[in-house]
């Protein structure tokens, strides 16, 4: 098993080293990326804050519930921006230019290579602030000991499922030309996830919690932490991970079969 994972770990380590070297070479970019993370943090915080200066609750959630959810999604987004996010645009470009050939030829799982080709570890710099915010609002909401213990596990489930869902969407890149449209849809999906399921109409709620669990991935774990969810929701999310993982595998094979290299 170790022999299987070792090359992947080595490649990932090298990718991170390369990214760090690049970041240190272009120092202004380093500062700008940090500024971007801070700007996202400020705008998301103030959007919720201004909203709750005018209202006391939405559904059963108060200001603290919302802010906990905002930072939950922000912390997931932080890891997502660090590892996977830059690679969606890169995949679109590689399909367009034929550069994907070189990835398919490498003695490594192509999916892994495609979605870890570019890493941006600078995004992790803001992670301690987000973790502090999660802990702060967790204390405000009087989380039980069980909730605190379950938090890392539930956070991982959220992260894995949301990343896999975006990878699943990006498989459409094999069937479209250009790729900007698919990537815009993916970005809009991120905006969609930033709000809890109960603000949406029933039809959308059903589609995006049961059929394509874009909302469920973020809101189910948080609801469990608030003591408003049930255990089957965790089981559902774990099943969803398995199904989405399988679908990605199938669509990747179909997509690569359809892929016509421009280069070779």
């Amino acid at each position, binding site marked *: 098993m170790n022999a299987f994972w070792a090359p992947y770990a080595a490649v990932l380590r090298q990718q991170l080293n390369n990214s760090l070297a690049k970041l240190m070479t272009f120092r202004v970019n380093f500062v*700008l990326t940090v500024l*971007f993370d801070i*700007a996202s943090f400020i705008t998301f915080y103030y959007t919720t804050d*201004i909203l709750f*200066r005018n209202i006391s609750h*939405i*559904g059963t959630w108060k200001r603290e519930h919302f802010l906990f959810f905002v930072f939950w999604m922000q912390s997931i987004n932080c890891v997502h921006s660090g590892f996977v996010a830059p690679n969606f645009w890169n995949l679109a470009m590689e399909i367009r230019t034929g550069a994907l050939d070189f990835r398919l030829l490498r003695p490594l799982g192509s999916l892994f290579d495609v979605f870890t080709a570019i890493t941006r570890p600078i995004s992790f710099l803001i992670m301690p602030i987000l973790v502090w915010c999660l802990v702060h609002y967790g204390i405000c909401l009087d989380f039980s000991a069980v909730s605190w213990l379950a938090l890392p596990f539930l956070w991982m489930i959220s992260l894995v499922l949301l990343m896999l869902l975006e990878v699943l969407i990006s498989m459409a890149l094999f069937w479209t030309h250009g790729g900007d449209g698919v990537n*815009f849809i993916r970005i*809009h999906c991120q905006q969609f996830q930033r709000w809890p399921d109960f*603000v949406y109409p029933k039809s959308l709620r059903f589609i995006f919690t049961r059929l394509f669990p874009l909302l469920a991935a973020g809101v189910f774990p948080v609801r469990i932490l608030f003591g408003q969810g049930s255990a089957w929701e965790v089981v559902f999310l774990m099943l969803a991970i398995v199904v989405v993982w399988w679908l990605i595998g199938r669509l990747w094979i179909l997509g690569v079969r359809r892929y016509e290299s421009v280069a070779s």
Partner: protein
Amino acid sequence: MLKAELRKWQKTTSVSISRYMAFKVDFLLMLVAPSFVFVAINYSIWRSIFQSRGGESISGFSMDQMLQYQCWSFIVALLTRSHRTWNLSEHIRLGRITSFLLYPFDAWKFYASEFVAFQLLQFCTALPSIIALRAFGFLPQLDLMACALGILFSLLVSVLWFVCDFTLGLAGFWLEEVWVFRVIFGLFAVLLSGAFIPIELFPPVLQTVIGYTPFPLITSVPVHIFLGTKSVPIGWSMGMVCAWTAALAVVSGVVWRRGIRLYTAAGI
């Protein structure tokens, strides 16, 4: 002379339109995505907020007024925020603007033609969207005068947005990546222009501060023009948009002249 110049603009615009329409699924997705986001997010959230308050008004906004505000905010976003210079920095970095230095058609004119092409398509999307919103009862009886003024004002704002975007893109002369500027500007523009939360709901101090910036001109003012709010000083606001556009155009000219002195490209 003028005829020849106009012909260049017309040809470049027409090529840009063909390019945007070339990848049909891609183009459709780019049109569908903002509409989906609007219907799914802004409209749903505000409806949900009002429903959980039993329909009680928020800072003078009734549920109907807020939902109409969100509808017009969506139309204004379609008409104003084009992002057509997103590849300018890449063109600078990879040395592709060299060709513009040789063509008898300046780089800014090329990007402006692309912007005009995209605006024409956006305009063609916005009009059916208004009709659809009215037909499905999201908007009340349309005041044609207010609509015409709102569209005119939004198109003026789109020029301001383009000049701003172009100026940010010119940072590519000094930096490897400039998407950060654009995204940060976009994030603050959505929050401070009242695109999601009307400025009237902001704390009074913040409202005063925002009043001195061009942000309200981007969404709040055009939305109120569409809504037919009497208190909006349309002439003054149009003057402000023109003044900000002119100021940014001067800045962009200065930045371009400084940047082009630094510019080097492989193969020259």
